[in-house]
């Protein structure tokens, strides 16, 4: 709900500012896809950012949200159930990973020839966990699957933390200056995040990711 409120406030702010027609204030909307470099695989990521530009597009301020969702990442992970328990006859749990972030984006922007470079800095919230997949989502007693995930992973199937992220993106204009294709590299920190599967929290902490962006923007 907090994330929804942040998004609502940002959308309202964006709408009001666009209406104000101040010559030095513009807007940007930038859907993106990308990948996150985990220890032994690359996770698929979908996200978006939107907000306002100031000082003739030299500074972006907005919201960034993205997720490394389980259904688009078939990689499975295995761990022994907590306290010697079994689930559907097995003591080994087979899991998928699911993740999402939302945060405040501030990105100083400068141009090198026709290419616009920005430095996206993000502070926000991150939530991620590990979950049962496929037939394992049909629980033995008909209870919700999260009840069993909690039980089998000692109440630590998911965790939350603050997110810090910094990066560098380059944008090339397409046809006109109001559409640009971008590519970026980002480094994420999620201090304090941990789960039963990953008590050290290294699955998402200190990770590199890349983004491929289509950015619509005011001229």
């Amino acid at each position, binding site marked *: 709900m907090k994330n929804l409120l942040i998004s609502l406030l940002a959308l309202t702010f964006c709408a009001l500012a666009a209406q104000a027609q101040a010559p030095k204030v513009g807007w940007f*909307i930038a859907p993106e896809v990308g990948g996150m470099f985990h220890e032994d695989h690359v996770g698929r990521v979908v996200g978006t950012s939107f907000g306002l530009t100031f000082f003739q597009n030299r500074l972006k301020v907005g919201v960034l949200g993205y997720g490394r969702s389980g259904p688009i990442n078939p990689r499975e992970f295995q761990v022994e159930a907590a306290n010697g328990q079994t689930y559907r006859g097995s003591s080994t749990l087979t899991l998928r990973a699911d993740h999402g972030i939302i945060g405040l984006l501030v990105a100083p922007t400068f141009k090198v020839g026709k290419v616009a470079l920005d430095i996206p800095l993000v502070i926000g919230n991150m939530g991620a966990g590990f979950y049962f997949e496929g037939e394992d*989502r049909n629980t033995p007693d008909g209870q919700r699957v999260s009840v069993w995930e909690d039980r089998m992973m000692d109440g630590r199937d998911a965790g939350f933390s603050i997110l810090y992220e910094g990066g560098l993106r380059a944008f090339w204009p397409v046809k006109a200056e109001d559409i640009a294709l971008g590519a970026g590299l980002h480094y994420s920190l999620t201090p304090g995040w941990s789960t039963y599967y990953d008590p050290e929290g290294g699955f998402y902490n200190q990770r590199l990711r890349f983004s491929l962006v289509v950015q619509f923007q005011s001229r």
Partner: protein
Amino acid sequence: MLLILSLVLGFQLPAQTQLSLTLGRSQQDNFLTHLNVSQVVNDRLSLGFSGQFGSPNLRFIEAKPIQDEGYAVSLALPGSFKLTESGKTQVFAFFQLGYRWQGIFDPDGNDMWDSILNSQALLGEIGLMVVRELGPRLNLQSGISFPIAYELQPTRLFENMTTLIHAGLFYELESSALLYLRGTMGPSFGASGDSQKFLWSVQAGMAFSLSGSVQSFTFPTL
């Protein structure tokens, strides 16, 4: 029935009324159809009414899955507001407030429709959409939105919040009609992780104006 009713209502409405019919497939529905009637109030504002029917692929009641069975019907009041227009680009803010009924007819699996499991939910969506002219007849529509679903019955729970990205191509057949093909996708969360984790859809449709030129913005499905 809804289609016929809406068409009749639509033709009785005054000028600047736009109809759109969308067919598609999504993570939630094996097949969906969506009908929207919207009224252009002024240069910037459009308000409308829409109905959607889906044949579920994967949906949730009380955060438990229903799969490849049942129905999902929703009605919504959508609105859009053109924030800015510059050259070949228009930016719209849009919202939808809706209500959804969904259910299955044979929850106990005894092959008889002697019981029913259903749910009702409040739906909402806010978003920003960019419409960019690519050619004399071709537009690109892309943007972002945040749809939410809150189940009211049989249990009150926050079913889902999604961050969706949109992309679509709109081809103008004539000044009063256009064809479109579009897709959405994005991460989703709700019900302690028991409901959807990722939503996607592919949709094709047609929009036409009852008089005058068709507006380039059309509402996404719920």
